[in-house]
């Protein structure tokens, strides 16, 4: 990826927990979520992050009826963060908590 500035936020959707209602798609101000094509194990088309543009605002998280379908991450500013501050680094997918 060739971006100069990383996105302020990052979104993970647990595909198997999602019911494909689309409320998060509607809620996201920068329109960074869409409904995917694949059916999940419940037979719903799960929402997916487009991969860019998330601001970490958390609006989709509160709009989503499922407890843990959505996790929103925010960029840690290394310049202001004390070294000891704990944060969860994210690589690839968040472990899937699903069924």
């Amino acid at each position, binding site marked *: 990826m060739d971006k100069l500035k*990383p996105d302020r*936020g*990052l979104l993970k959707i*647990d595909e*198997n*927990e999602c*019911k*494909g*209602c*689309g*409320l998060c*798609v*509607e*809620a996201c*101000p920068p329109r960074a979520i869409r409904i995917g094509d694949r059916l999940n194990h*419940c037979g*719903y088309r799960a929402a997916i992050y487009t991969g860019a543009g998330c601001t*970490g605002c*958390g*609006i989709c*998280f*509160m*709009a*989503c*009826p*499922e*407890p*843990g379908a*959505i*996790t*929103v*991450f*925010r*960029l*840690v500013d*290394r310049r202001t963060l004390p070294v000891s501050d704990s*944060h*969860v*680094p*994210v690589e690839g997918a968040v472990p899937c*908590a*699903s*069924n």
Partner: protein
Amino acid sequence: MSGAVDPDYTVAHSRPKAFYESFERKEELQHQTHYCPGCGHGIVHKMLARAIDELGVQDRTILISPVGCSVFAYYYFDVGNVQAAHGRAPAVGTGIKRSRPGSIVIGYQGDGDLSAIGSAEILHAANRGENITVIFVNNAIYSMTGGQMAPTTLLGQKSTTTPDGRTAEHEGHPLHMSELLATLGAPVYIGRVGLGDNRQIAQATRAIKRAVENQVRGLGFSLVEVLSPCPTIWKMQPVDAQHWVRDVMEKTFPLGVFVDRTNEMQPPAGTNTAPAIGEIPRILGICAGDAGLAGEIPTSQTGELDLRVRVSGFGGQGVLLLGEVLAEAGMDAGLEASWLPSYGPEIRSGTSNCHVRLASSPIDSPLVMNPDVLVAMNEPSLKKFGAGVRSGGWILYNGAMFPPEYVREGVHILARDFTREADAIGDPRAANMVMLGVLLEIAAALPQASIDAALRQCVKQPKWIDLDERALARGRALLREFMERGAA
């Protein structure tokens, strides 16, 4: 990775901790709710779970699930849970809050639950200003049962019971519960929010937290009504249902804060805190081991008194009077007292019984299922209640021979023909007072003056007072004899 940008992300919004990690009570799909896609209940659950997290009250929250689509709210919240009968959450919540003042009691109710079958309960709980929080999820329909009209159904809205749409002429106008309750003097906070768009959702999140926080601060009754989509019964796509809340429902049910007395209210002086862990066995009525006869029933000398008595016999044997004198004497002695008679046709014949509790601390429930002392005037009473007597407790049985099938290890038995004892004093009908005398001697918790006062309160005729006093004294003597024989 050196030099250049090294973006790391930290979790900003994730599954609230007040939810179970896995919904073990659900048979399948233990990471999803049972709600339909786009259901407002899921969103309200998340708001509530987050509020519980943020206020740090998970360990002392007791959630009351209703009847309706959210009947299984207790599948999800990792808090204390009670599931109430339809509409009764405010009454159940009242009982829980009063007996566990340190708990945070949250009633969760649908609009059918709260505004139809439960309209009386919510009205009176609000009017008493119970220090509880009520989350009222209004989706304008009975969803769980397939879409019948609710008191909150909009005019013109179709339902299975109003197939051509609700009309004011036939079904009346939609009930505005928040506005109705706002006419009362006691509530601290009553507001209506919606789930109709992002702005409304943000506002609803704040209101729900506020309503719980008010209780944490000890301020009093708070209710938040949430206009909530039910895509399935409304037969709409989830996003359309969400917009219907904002564009249509809100016209009938305007959003707003109808009561806010949070600034006027003073938290109560004595702060209510959860009891110490060490107190819990006593509160639950679990007694540690057999401490011998003298230490069986905690008395006012040895510490906290919590005496539970069940009295049972045939109508006319003075069962209820025995209980009444005991309870009156307790009140006279400054104790908390409850007397719960079982009324019915059996007052005249058949088995009659009453529950009595005397305690140093407020009494949570007047029911006595595991008595310290069972006063059984006859064999049917033994049959009915003998098995419930707690280990280390007593059965006082009116009969010379105790039926062997009711003997239980660890339960003291004093079987006597108390009717004959009473006869010897002057009247067989005083058997109940002889037995009360035994009980008083066992419990050793009440001053004689209080017993005398109670007797004068409950028994009007001087002839009987005199007889009953002698009967009580005879009972006391009987127990002492019994103990001496046991010790010898």
